[in-house]
Structures are given as structure tokens and as C-alpha cells.
């Protein structure tokens, strides 16, 4: 553990505050980039409605004024940024509903899927990573390693379709009765959790294997630390910080994962909303979703770094 004196020292607090500030700064830059990327697009957003015959030129002008698109870019940007803390993300081009409401409405579906997937990722990656490292010379270990390798390499679009097909076939054959909720939630979460677990499992495995060759591990053995869990813990603990960072990374990657799984399993949620808003050209909704995702992503990465300060005292001191 981190020495108490160090954890309380102001230097430590400063490094945490600095990391938080950094992640907020990055989040701001990412939000700005999203805003600019969508404004700099070849055609203006309302033009999409025009080209699809969904609005007359007069309607389009009215809509431009309503959305404030006729104003200078800088004014739009200031308005957009000042709306963010209050949760104002603009309104949909099609339904004129506030984007924040639309997102909140779809959020529970994605949260349920992503939450369950995260638990599955955690369990699977810990099992696969530790197992593969501990039994590295046995066939079991190699098998576990190739399972996580498969999880990394196989694209979610294929794994998802394969699993969907298998379960549809099983259910229609009447062999197994699955409650519809289980089918709607558990199976997509399983696909997502499995796909995300590979990378973490490999990191964990590589870390443990490296630590098992380090002098401190030999010292622990020499001191007579019992083989099995106590010895495993010596190799595992220093391997945790990178795995935790990667886990946070995967947690925020879950959003892109849900884009695909929600489409495959025809589930409602934010991912589907994003795909649909891009296909429809509903730019305020797409912008709102990317902004929220970028924000969640950067902040959770920052938090993961702070977690690793606690897990490995060496990291905090280097900052």
C-alpha cells in the first residue's frame, strides 16, 4: 500500500488535482473539436433536410434562425458552451425536442447493457488473465490465452451475429425457454463483455508473468510465502495499475461497443440513437452524444490514473 505519510502529503494532492485539471482541459478540447467538425461540414446541417425534400427553402431559413445557425460561429460556440453546464445540448432537427431529453430517455437502456457488460468483462478478464498466467506451462493456460486472443481479434459484428443466430435457433427449436428480458439484455451484454475482456486479460497476464520473474517474487518465495493465493497476490498486485487503466478505457469504450451490439440485437439505446441521428443527418443529436461520450471518456481516464496512484506508489511520485 501507499505509505500513509505520502498519501496525505500535499504533493500527492497536487498531482491528483493536476490530473483532474488535465482531463477537464482535454474534455473541453474534445468538445470544441466536435463542435467545429460538425459546423465545418461540407453542407450546412439544415441543407440535409432541404436535399431530402423534408423542408422548403423558407422552412429551412426559419429553422436556421431558430437554431441560431445564421449567427457567427463564435457566438454559436459561446452559446453552445454556456449551455453545457446546465445540460442544454440544443434540440433535434426533426422533433424539435431537447437533445438532453432524448438522450436521458435512451440512457437507461444503454446503462443497463453497459453495466452488465462491465461486470462480465471484469469477471472474464480476471479469470482469463490470471488463469493464463498461473497455468502458463499447462494446456489450460494456453487455452485460456487463446480464448482472450480470440476475444481481441474477432470483430463484435461477427461475434454478435453468431451468438444471435445460435440463440435464435435454440429458442425457436423449443429446446430452451428464455425469458424475453434475458434475451434482450443478458446476451448482448455477454457479447460486449466478452469482446472487451481480451485486452485486459492479456495485460494482466503479461504483467503477472513479468512479476513472477522479478526479484521481489523470488524474495517472497524465499521468505516462504505459501504457494497458491498468497504467492499469486505478490505477482498480481503490481500488475493491477495498467489493468485498471485499461479497464477504465474499456469502460468508456463500452459506448462504441453498444453502438454495434444495440444495432445487432435491435435494442433501444444511445448507440442506436447515434447511428440513426447520423443516418438522418440530425446533427444536434449526434453532437450531443459525442460530447457526452468524450466527456465521460476523458474524465474516467483521469479517475483511472488517480486510482493507479493509490495502487502503485511509484506512479504518483513520478508526476
Amino acid at each position, binding site marked *: 500500500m501507499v505509505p500513509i505519510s505520502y498519501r496525505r502529503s500535499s504533493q500527492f494532492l497536487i498531482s491528483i488535482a493536476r490530473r483532474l485539471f488535465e482531463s477537464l482541459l*482535454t*474534455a473541453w*478540447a*474534445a468538445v470544441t*473539436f*466536435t463542435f467545429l*467538425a*460538425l459546423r*465545418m*461540414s*461540407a*453542407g450546412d446541417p439544415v441543407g440535409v433536410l432541404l436535399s431530402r425534400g423534408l423542408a422548403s427553402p423558407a422552412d429551412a431559413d426559419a429553422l436556421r434562425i431558430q437554431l441560431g445557425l445564421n449567427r457567427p460561429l463564435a457566438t454559436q460556440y459561446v452559446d453552445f458552451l454556456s449551455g453545457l453546464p446546465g445540460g442544454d445540448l440544443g434540440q433535434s432537427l426533426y422533433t424539435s425536442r431537447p437533445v438532453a431529453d432524448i438522450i436521458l430517455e435512451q440512457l437507461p437502456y444503454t446503462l443497463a447493457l453497459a453495466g452488465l457488460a462491465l461486470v462480465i468483462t471484469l469477471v472474464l478478464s480476471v479469470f482469463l488473465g490470471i488463469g493464463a498466467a498461473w497455468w502458463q506451462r499447462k494446456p489450460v493456460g494456453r487455452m485460456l490465452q487463446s480464448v482472450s486472443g480470440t476475444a*481481441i*481479434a*474477432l*470483430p*463484435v*459484428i*461477427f461475434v454478435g*451475429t*453468431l451468438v*444471435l*443466430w445460435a440463440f*435464435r*435457433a435454440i429458442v*425457436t427449436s423449443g429446446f430452451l425457454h428464455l425469458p424475453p428480458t434475458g434475451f434482450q439484455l443478458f446476451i448482448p451484454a455477454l457479447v460486449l463483455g466478452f469482446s472487451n475482456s481480451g485486452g485486459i486479460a492479456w495485460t494482466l497476464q503479461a504483467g503477472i508473468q513479468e512479476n513472477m520473474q522479478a526479484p521481489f517474487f523470488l524474495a517472497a518465495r524465499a521468505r516462504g510465502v505459501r504457494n497458491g493465493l498468497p504467492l499469486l497476490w505478490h505477482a498480481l498486485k503490481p500488475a493491477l495499475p495498467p489493468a485498471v487503466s485499461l479497464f477504465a478505457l474499456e469502460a*468508456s*469504450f463500452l*459506448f*462504441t461497443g453498444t*453502438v*454495434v451490439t444495440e*444495432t*445487432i440485437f435491435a435494442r433501444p439505446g444511445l448507440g442506436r440513437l*447515434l*447511428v440513426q*441521428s*447520423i*443516418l438522418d443527418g440530425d*446533427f444536434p443529436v*449526434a*453532437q450531443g452524444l*459525442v460530447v457526452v*461520450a*468524450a466527456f465521460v*471518456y*476523458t474524465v474516467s*481516464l483521469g479517475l483511472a490514473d488517480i486510482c493507479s496512484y493509490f495502487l502503485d506508489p511509484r506512479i504518483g511520485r513520478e508526476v
Partner: protein
Amino acid sequence: MIRRILAIIWLSTILAVAAAAPLLTVYDPVQPAGGALESPSAIHPLGTDNLGRDVFSRLVYGSRMSLVMAGMAGAIAVVFGSLLGSWSAVSRRQVDAVLTWSGNVLLSIPGLLLAMLFVASLGTGALTVTLAVGISAVPGYMRVARTLMKQIRQEEYILAAEAIGASSLRIAWRHIIPNARPRLQVLATTQLAWSFVNTTTLSFLGFAGDPSTPEWGAMLNTGRGFLLQAPHLALIPGLAISLTILALHALGTTSRSHTTI
């Protein structure tokens, strides 16, 4: 070693198939050639899809689109990523800081999401998907290239070259680039695998425009609607995508063990 050989066999097969597509197929990939959802038979070796188009023809022609999209996206990432990365590594501290920070900002948006942002900005279509996947992978490649070049610049043989008065251009051309190449090649292979994943995924999601154009990701998406009646419609393109990605990964990891990154 076996993995490497299998990977090379698979990749050269699909490259050959893509090149020789008109010689291998009888039916037009976009015109109906029989009844809808026919099972595999002697006439249609992989059956027909929901619009009666020959699946084998679509698979063969689809390899062209999938490979070109992924290849171009990968090339964009590798070329611009290594250019920006080496620029960042050799320039003054302020320039380096600005480039690194901009890269980190872009990296703070997950790759597929960034690509989708570009699609939202540029509009749907095969070309924009390719550009979007390529551009969104540049910052990641740039970061790795920069770290690599920085490492090499600190080596003693660079110092030795500087000491005997070699020009910076000569140092870059004779020392840094040759030493960075093997590792950059490995990264390029992995990059190609990710480009393949992302382009097929975006086209699966319907961003590549006209769904009648044969492309593996779009074929998988179409087949998804007919999983029970005709599972091969989705599973065959899905398998083709997965094998290609596995092969690219296998090539990347085995050559890594040869060059010890």
C-alpha cells in the same frame, strides 16, 4: 510459424480473388440471378440473398470494396501518422508539445466514435467511411511513431553520427528511418487489422452508402435480417471478415516476435 503461413495463404488468396473477380464469377453481383434466399446449390455455390443475387459473386466482388477501403484507411493512418510523429519527434519542444497535445485530444474520443463524427460531418458513403477511419487512426499511430523516433534519437550511434558531422537529413535517412522501419511495419500490420475492423463495422452500420454495392460488412448486415431462414447469408461474410482480421493480427504478432519490439 504455422499461424503465419496460414495467415499469408489466406491473405494472398483474398488478394488474388479480389484481383480476378470477373474470371471467378458467372453472375453479376448486383443483378438478381435466381429466386430469393435459395440454399447453396450447384448453380449458386453459396445460395442467393433476399433479392435473388448470387452470394458467391457478391462475396468475391465484395472483397474488392472491403480490401480497398481498409487498405486506404490503413495507408492514411500509417503515412500521416508516421510523418506527423517524426515531425513531432525532431522539432523544437513547443511544436512537439502542441502536436502531442492535439493528438491526445483526438485520442480522447474513442476511435470508432471519432470516425462516426467524421461521417456525420462529411456525409455517408464509401469514400467518407474510408477517410473517417483513416483520419481517426492518425493520432494513435502518430503517438507510437513519435515515441519510437524519440527513443532512436537518444541512441549512441546517433550521437556518434552527429559527432562525425553527419547532416540531420543523413541521420534521418541513414539511421533513424532504417532503425524504426521494422517496428513501424509491425504497427502498420496491426493498424491494417484495425482499419479493417472499423471500415467493415461502419459499413455494417449502414454508413457506406448504397447497400446494393457488394461489401462484406454491408452483406453481414443484410444477412442479419434472415438469420433463421438463411444463416449462411450473414455467417459467410462474417467469417470472411473475421478470418482476414485474424490473419492480419497473426502476421502482426509473429513478425513482432521476430523483431522484438
